[in-house]
């Protein structure tokens, strides 16, 4: 079965029903391994055990941005290639990305209180991530305001493409501005500046959260396809009565 066959919603439903339990199992295993790594990871020499908030905060940030990237690809699929599942993928990814961004903001806030002395500061990195969260909420509001799913899809796709300009701003905000948030330590030119003993648990947790995202994304896409079928059936039923 070629990849193109998944463009058919019924084929995708069959795939999703079979695949979700496997992905869920892999997610559970990855989290088990990841949490073991986190618990046995060393404390930071300055921050002590508080540094372990990073294992929630950084994957949350990465996946929040990944969610918008998935939505951007889906937006191309809707506007350029008219892929039938593109708007389903976009609508499914929005709440997931928003939840991860919110996790990043809340864990970062709790981390900032002991480390910086404040829950929030208006520096470039924090502001641009907050803007990303507002963009997510805006897209979710847009999906729920327009009744017809395909019209909502096109409007949301345009908003997603415009909002994608925030992603490089977030990434490079710590380089372009004088920020309180620390500069890039993992994805940068030259080697990562984190010690491997702390970097490895971080990568494992990031992988576990990514598997969680994929599992929830496939399940949400299945739900969205079923939701649209219910809506079509209701519309047919309503017009058949009259």
């Amino acid at each position: 079965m070629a990849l193109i066959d998944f463009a058919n919603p019924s084929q995708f439903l069959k795939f999703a029903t079979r695949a979700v339990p496997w992905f869920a199992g892999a997610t559970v295993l990855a989290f088990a391994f990841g949490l073991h790594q986190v618990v046995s990871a060393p404390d930071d020499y300055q921050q002590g055990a508080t540094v372990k908030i990073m294992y929630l905060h950084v994957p949350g940030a990465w996946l929040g941005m990944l969610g918008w990237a998935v939505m951007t690809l889906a937006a191309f699929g809707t506007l350029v290639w008219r892929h039938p599942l593109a708007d389903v993928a976009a609508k499914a990814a929005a709440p997931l990305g928003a939840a991860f961004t919110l996790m990043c903001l809340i864990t970062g806030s709790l981390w900032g209180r002991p480390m910086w002395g404040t829950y929030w500061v208006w520096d470039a990195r924090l502001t641009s991530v907050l803007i990303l969260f507002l963009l997510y909420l805006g897209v979710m509001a847009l999906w729920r305001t327009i009744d017809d799913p395909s019209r909502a899809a096109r409007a949301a796709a345009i908003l997603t493409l415009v909002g994608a300009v925030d992603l490089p701003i977030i990434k490079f905000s710590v380089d372009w501005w004088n920020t309180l948030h620390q500069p890039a330590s993992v994805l940068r030119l030259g080697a990562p500046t984190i010690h491997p003993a702390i970097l490895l648990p971080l990568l494992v947790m990031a992988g576990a959260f990514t598997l969680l995202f994929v599992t929830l994304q496939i399940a949400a896409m299945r739900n969205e396809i079923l939701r649209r079928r219910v809506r079509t059936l209701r519309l047919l039923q309503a017009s058949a009565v009259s």
Partner: protein
Amino acid sequence: MSALASLLMRDLRVAVRVGGGALMGVLFFLVVVTLTPLALGPDLALLRRIGPAILWLAALLASLLALDRLFTADYEDGSLDLIVTGPAPLELVVAVKGLAHWLTTGLPLIVAAPLIGLFLDLDAATAAALTLTLLVGTPGLTFIGLIGAAIAVTLRRGGLLLAVLVLPLTVPVLIFGVAAANAAVSGPLPFGTPFTVLCALTLASMVIGPFAGAAALRQEME
């Protein structure tokens, strides 16, 4: 009584569905509070001092923008005619619609206000006082606002006119709300003085608003 109860449930249900815009007020609130420090600069001390004022202004604007859907949506699809000619007194009908509007627009704002106060570095005492003043003041904003919403019900693009009509009437609520929130942490005034006046303003608006709104609706629907 059950006619009013079913009207309340209907309004609540419509508000949370597609196009209802129930949580849009909170989103706008969050956006305005995000924009203010971007305009003022990141000085946390300044933000902490004017924090209650910013939050009150944002809550006022968010309540104002949501007034659009109070009567106009029902007018446009014809259900307002049915509601107006129903068995219950029009004043009570207007009061119930105002209550439904506050539950879906004002109450989320109140729940969100302490969390959003963290963005402006408000300490716990200020945030608590502010939330209390919002809890008492936002019903006043809704019930004053519904007067303007009833006057502007037949206008399709009446958004800004609605704002111009309603904002001067809500000025006392704004003044005493911010005064109470500030009095709780600083200043010579005790918290009770402006807070009691705020309670009085809200209670008065809960009586005047439905009567004025019903009169306006009767005028407009002739």
